C-alpha cells in the first residue's frame, strides 16, 4: 500500500472542500445569531480537514454514514449546499423535505446514506452498507464517522468485531475532538489512544493529526486501498478540535482556557491556506478565487433556503411507510 504525497491539484481540491465547510458553517452560525435560522446545530468548525481529505479519495459510489455533527462530512461528500441549507431551514426543498434536519442529512446520489443522532449508531449501519457491497462484489467502500465519546459505547465494539470477522470494506473514522458534549476525553475514555483499540479486533489502527490534511489523506489512502482490495476494515483516529462547542449556545465553560487557545492557534484552516501558498501548491489569487466561488455558492444556498416554502402539514402522513397513512 503506497503512501502517496497528494499532488497540488488534490491538495487544492481538499482546500476547496475545507473552505466550503468553513464558510457554510460561519454563515449558518451568522444566520442563527441574526435570528434568521433556528435549530440545534452541531458545528464541526475545526474538524473540516478530516472529511475534506478523506472524501477526495472517494467516489460518488462510496458510502458515507455520519452523525449529528456531520454537516462537514456531508458537504465534503457532495451534499449540495442548497439542499443542506434548505434542510437546515426546515424547508420543503431540503434534501429530506424538512423532515430530517441537521441530525438526519441524507443524499443517496452522492453516497450520503445515513446521518444518525444516536451516539455509536453510525458504525453498525456502515457495516451493513459495506456488507452489501461485499456481497455484490463491488469495490465501493463505506466510511463511518463518529466521535471520541462514541468509542466508549457498545455499538463501537460490536461493529469493529463484526467488521473484522466478516472482513468488511469499511473505514471507521473517529474524529477525536477531545470532548464528548462537556466531558473531557480522559474522564470517559480509558485508553490513551482510541486507535489502539483496533488491536482488540485484529485490525489496523491509525492515529493521525486530524488537522493535517496530508496526514489524514495518507492514512485514508491506506485504509481505502485495503478495503477496496478485500483486506477488510481499518480504524482511523484523527485528532482535532471543535471550536464552537457541542452545539450553538454552548459557552465552553468546561474547556480549559489554555487548551482552547492552543486549539484555536492550531486552526487547520488558515494554517493550510498559508501552507498551500508557501509551498506553491496554489497562488493567493487562486485561493481568493476559490473563496469567492464558495461565497457565491453559499449566497445562493442561503437565498434558496430562505425563499423556499415550508413543508405542507400533510407531510407528517407521508414517508412513514411506502404508502400514506390516514
Amino acid at each position, binding site marked *: 500500500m503506497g503512501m502517496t504525497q497528494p499532488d497540488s491539484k488534490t491538495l487544492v481540491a481538499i482546500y476547496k472542500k475545507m473552505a466550503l465547510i468553513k464558510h457554510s458553517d460561519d454563515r449558518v452560525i451568522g444566520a442563527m445569531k441574526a435570528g434568521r435560522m433556528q435549530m440545534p446545530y452541531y458545528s464541526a468548525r475545526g474538524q473540516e480537514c478530516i472529511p475534506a481529505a478523506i472524501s477526495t479519495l472517494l467516489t460518488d459510489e462510496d*458510502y458515507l*454514514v455520519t452523525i449529528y455533527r456531520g454537516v462537514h462530512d456531508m458537504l465534503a461528500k457532495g451534499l449540495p449546499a442548497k439542499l443542506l441549507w434548505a434542510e437546515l431551514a426546515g424547508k420543503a426543498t*431540503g*434534501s*429530506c*423535505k*424538512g*423532515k*430530517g434536519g441537521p441530525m*438526519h442529512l*441524507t*443524499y*443517496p446520489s452522492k453516497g450520503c*446514506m*445515513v446521518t*444518525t443522532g*444516536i451516539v455509536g*449508531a453510525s*458504525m*453498525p*449501519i*456502515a*457495516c*451493513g*452498507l*459495506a*456488507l*452489501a457491497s461485499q*456481497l455484490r462484489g463491488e469495490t465501493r467502500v*463505506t466510511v463511518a464517522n463518529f466521535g471520541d465519546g462514541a468509542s466508549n459505547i*457498545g*455499538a463501537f*465494539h*460490536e*461493529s469493529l*468485531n*463484526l467488521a473484522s*470477522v*466478516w472482513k468488511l470494506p469499511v473505514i471507521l473514522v473517529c474524529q477525536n475532538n477531545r470532548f464528548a458534549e462537556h466531558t473531557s476525553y480522559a474522564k470517559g475514555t480509558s485508553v490513551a489512544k482510541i486507535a489502539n483499540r483496533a488491536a482488540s479486533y485484529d485490525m489496523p489502527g491509525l492515529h493521525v493529526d486530524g488537522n493535517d490534511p496530508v496526514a489524514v489523506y495518507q492514512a485514508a489512502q491506506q485504509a481505502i486501498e485495503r478495503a477496496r482490495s478485500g483486506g477488510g476494515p481499518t480504524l482511523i483516529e484523527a485528532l482535532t478540535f471543535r471550536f464552537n462547542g457541542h452545539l450553538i449556545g454552548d459557552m465552553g465553560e468546561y474547556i480549559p482556557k489554555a487548551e482552547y487557545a492552543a486549539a484555536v492557534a492550531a486552526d487547520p484552516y488558515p494554517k493550510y491556506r498559508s501552507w498551500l501558498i508557501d509551498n506553491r501548491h496554489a497562488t493567493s489569487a487562486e485561493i481568493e478565487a476559490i473563496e469567492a466561488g464558495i461565497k457565491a455558492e453559499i449566497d445562493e444556498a442561503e437565498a434558496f433556503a430562505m425563499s423556499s416554502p415550508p413543508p405542507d402539514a400533510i407531510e407528517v402522513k*407521508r*414517508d*412513514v*411507510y*411506502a404508502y400514506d*397513512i390516514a
Partner: protein
Amino acid sequence: MDTNTSTQQKAAAPVNMIQALNWALHDAMEEDANVIHFGEEVGDAEGGGIVKISAGLSTKFGSRVRSTPISEMGFMGAAVGAAVVGMKPVVEVMLMNFVAVCMDQITNHAAKLRFMSGGQTHVPMVIRTMTGSGFQNGGQHSDFLEAWFCHTPGIKVVMPSNPADGYGLLRSAIDDPDPVLFIDHLNNYWTPGVAPVRGTKIPLGKARIHQPGKDVTVIGYSRSMLDIPPVAAKLEAEGISVEIIDLRTVSPIDMDTVLASVKKTGRAVIVHEAVKSFGVGAELSSRIHEALFRELKAPVERVASNDSPVPYAPPLEAAFLYSHADIEAAIRKTLA
C-alpha cells in the same frame, strides 16, 4: 425436515411451522439475490438455527447466510445499512427478549429512516424472532413484546399462527418495502398444519376469519389461536356461535375486518399471551369502543397474561398465562 426442497410443497402433506418458514426463506432467497439472512447460529455449520428454521440455506446460498457474533446491536445495524441500499435482510433475533439489546437500531433507525430522510431511503428488512411461555425459560426468555413495536410508527408487526400463514406472511414481509417484525411463537413449531403452496403470499395488514359465527367475535393472533378454537367448540355445543378472527398482522390492524365482524355480533373478546396492561388488546378494545359504542351489546373483554414477569416453575407458568376457562368466562360475560 425436507430442507429447502420446495418442490415438496404439496397442499396435501401437512407440514409444521419450522418447515413452512424454512421454505419461505428458501424461496425468497432463490427468487431474489438481494435477500440475505443472518443471526446467531443460522449457518449450517452451527446447526441452521436453534430450531433449524434456517437449515440448508447457508449450504445453498453461501455467504448470503451468516452466523453472527453475539452482537445484536451490531448485526441489526448491519441489516439496516444493507437494507438502505436495497438488500433485503432477514435478520434473526434468537429470542424476543433479546430485542432489548438492539432496540435502538430497530426503533430509532429501521422504523424512522424513511421518514427522516424525506423518503430518500427506506429499510426493507425483516426481523424474525420467537418467543412464548411454557418452556420453563424464565423471565428473560419468554416475553411477548409486540406492543412496544406496534407503538413505533414505521415498522409493521406480523405474528402468524399456522404454517400456511407463516409461509405466506413471511414471503410478503420480505417483499415489503418497510421494516417488518415477524414474531413466531414456540408453542406450535412442531404441530403439523396445512402446507403452504409455493409462492402463495398473504398480504400484510389483512386478518383472517378463522371461523364465522353470529354471537360474539373473538380476536386472537399467534399463540392464542391455539386456545380460542377449542373454547369456541365447547360453546358451540351450547348453541353459542363464535366468530374467530386471526389478526395475523398486529400492526397495522385490519380494522375493517374486525369492525365488520363486531358490528354483526355486537360483542368482542380479545385474547393474547402478552401481559394484559398496555398490551395490544387495549388498542383493539379502544378502537372497537370508539367505532361501535352504540352497537355494542357489552363492553369489549380482554383476556391476557398476568402483569408479571414470566415465572419458571410450571405451575406458576400456568398461572401466568390466561386459561381456557378465562376465555370462556370472558365470552360468557359479553353474553350475560
